[in-house]
């Protein structure tokens, strides 16, 4: 009697969004639109690479939080590659979102734990 082999393949889509420059009230709507499109297409796992962001304000932060909230509702999650510039990381510390978002070293690394 031959062995029965059943294989199941799972494909997990992880979208990495690399940002550079200012992520402020003027730029945030474009990012929100892009994320809305991905969420609508079924993506629930995101990596935001903020390493080249020069400035982040609460409007930009609101987009990241919105995506995190909706991703988690769909059993997904969001990881951040931390900003190098203090002007960008400052708001994450001030609002204590550095305790909420999981950070990873580089967007090239597929995050563990998804």
């Amino acid at each position, binding site marked *: 009697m031959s062995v029965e082999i059943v294989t199941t393949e799972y494909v997990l889509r992880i979208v990495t969004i690399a940002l550079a420059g*200012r992520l*402020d*009230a*003027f730029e945030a709507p474009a990012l929100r639109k892009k994320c809305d499109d991905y969420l609508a297409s079924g993506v629930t796992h995101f990596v935001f690479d903020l390493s080249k962001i020069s*400035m982040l*304000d*609460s*409007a930009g*932060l*609101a987009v990241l*939080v*919105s995506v*995190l*909230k909706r991703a988690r509702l769909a059993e997904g999650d969001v990881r951040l590659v931390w900003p190098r510039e*203090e*002007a960008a990381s*400052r*708001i994450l510390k*001030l*609002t*204590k*979102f550095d*305790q*909420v978002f999981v950070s990873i070293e580089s967007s090239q690394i597929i995050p563990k734990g998804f």
Partner: protein
Amino acid sequence: MQIDLTIDADYEQLRIPAEALRNAAARAGVPEVTVGLCELALQELLTNLVDHAYGGNSSNQIGFHAQVGPAKIQMMTEDSGQAVNLDLEAVSMPDPFALQEGGYGMAIIKSLMDEVTCHRQNGKNIWVLVKHY
């Protein structure tokens, strides 16, 4: 060093006062970290004015005045939008784990600045932010 300018209540134009402040502060030798704190506070305030005072109507204007001194930066804005009805003392940072998307701006401003005041004068809201360094 004095800055006086007027911008439209439009998100894109909010960068103009920040850039003017950065240039003046650099000439005055203000520490980079202080400039960064003031820039973020200013950005949050101006965004609040566009969103709340003017309800997103970009045909309105915002006046910006700043004094960059040897030990302090004072920033002042004028807008003719809705009168501010806010208890500044009661403003606190939302719990981040609640994943609230808004309501951080004024708490951020308070945490960054040494003095934050707002009063109504001649039909205008006058916000004054002060940072000592």
